[in-house]
């Protein structure tokens, strides 16, 4: 399959994520949308990795491996972010009994 299809798919997923972050008001849904953005990137990285492998395999049998490695790092970092992020959301729920980000306007003067 041509690489363009993958680019369109990943960018579409990414844009859905961005739209969700900008329009939704529930902190957990915003958080899910951020995860969607990261996963769109993962998909695209794997696709590019495969593309580089096919182009370069004759010169370098491990071509494109960097992209796949990067995906693992993104997964690890995303997991770390999830643990911190959910803790913050729980902390907010304890204080306000809501996960609606519209409540978050006390800092505006």
């Amino acid at each position: 399959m041509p690489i363009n299809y993958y680019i369109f798919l990943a960018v579409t997923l990414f844009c859905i994520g961005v739209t969700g972050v900008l329009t939704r008001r529930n902190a957990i849904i915003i958080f899910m949308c951020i995860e969607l953005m990261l996963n769109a990137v993962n998909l695209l990285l794997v696709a590019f990795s495969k593309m580089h492998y096919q182009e370069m395999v004759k010169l370098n049998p491990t071509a494109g491996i960097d992209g796949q490695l990067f995906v693992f790092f993104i997964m690890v970092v995303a997991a770390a972010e999830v643990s911190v992020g959910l803790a913050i959301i729980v902390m907010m729920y304890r204080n306000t009994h809501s996960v609606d980000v519209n409540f978050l306007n006390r800092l505006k003067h």
Partner: protein
Amino acid sequence: MNAIIISAVWGIVMMFSGLLTSNKSTVRYVAIGGIILLFIANLMDLGMGHPFFSIDTRRMLYFDTFPLVFNAIAYGCTLLYFLLSGRDIEQVGVNVAEYFALIFFVLCGVAIASSFNTLLMLFLGIEIISIPLYILTGSNKKNLKSTEASLKYFLMGSFSTGIMLLGITFLYGASSKGTFFIDEISLLGGPASPLFMAGLLLLLISMAFKVSAAPFHFWTPDVYDGAPTVFTSFMATIVKAAVFIAFIRLFFDSFGEIQARWQIFISIIIAATLFIGNLTAVFQQSVKRMLAYSSIAQAGFMLFAILTLNQIGRDGLLLYTAAYSVATIGIFAILVRMKDHSFEGFNGLAKHHPVLAATNTVFLLSLAGIPLTGGFFAKFYMLAAVVKTGQSLWLVIFAVLCAAVSIYYYFRVIQAMYFKDGEPQQIDSPVAFRVLLVIAALIILILGMFPQWLINTLEIPYI
């Protein structure tokens, strides 16, 4: 390499020290010992001795004088920060050892972000900086403002991380060899494909997010205002400087050759940042919030180094980070001990606490860029870098005008301290605290009179 390993290990040492002792001062001394060790180890890396660790990182990390000198500045500032505000960190909550541990993890990220050589390490460095900061921002768990700032910072931070990752992926796809090494990206980009340019722009946007440049600055005032003041001090200085170093290294090594294509975007960002930062700071009622906007305005000046990418700009950026960090840490150290964070809270400070007022004046003058202080030469180097390129001179004039505006809100504090009468207030200022403030003020003055002392350290050849 020393710094990365020791700071990561010391973070774990800090966590155990919280387990083994419940005495808060002991924990603080362990932290101060750690940062001194880190500072010395970093100097040894800089060619004044031999490094403890030499690990083959397969070119993923690149150690040179520039990042190592910056690390020395960052650790020196952190040492000053621990000495000045260590007691105030103890006031934030019960988990003192963990706060120090998280700060050491941030320092590990600072070392990675300043010495990365692949986009992978850039991403990891920025994330290792950010994730502990989300926790530190929300460390005052009972305070709703702190929680709110933490959530806001977290959502905005991970959103910009997503944008950065998409940019990195586009660059990876556009490079014909499939590489993340920053020095190979530009050579293989060829006649910049649309994919390459899209990746570059996304990276630019996400880095602008992280350094809080307009129009991506909107999270900064809220987060800086809501976070516990001690941690705002750390976030606004050392962390911001580290992201700037990452920013300039990325653009210097990867995109330096196609500078003409992205210069216009940086020019717009600089103009917007200077304008919004300075003008909004004028209307603030709280000094803490004013300092948040002032940090945006200062970021506008630091961006000049990225616009020009020449030697003066690079040298000047180091001077700028040093002068700005020391001054801001000093102001925050005084602010955090005051009960009233508004401008009125400073009324009559000079009468009751003359040392605090005098040193605070030096810090504010430095931020405003008055001659004889470090801030003057920092700004001078930035503008000289632009003048040397001979382009975008309108930006220089605009920057000077904005600096003139900034004098207004910095002098409002000085005026309140010296020319207004106020209630005498209890500020806990032991002798050691005042001595340290004087030392910090002296550092500012020395940087203002002999900036070449710092710049010349860059000439040390790296072995």
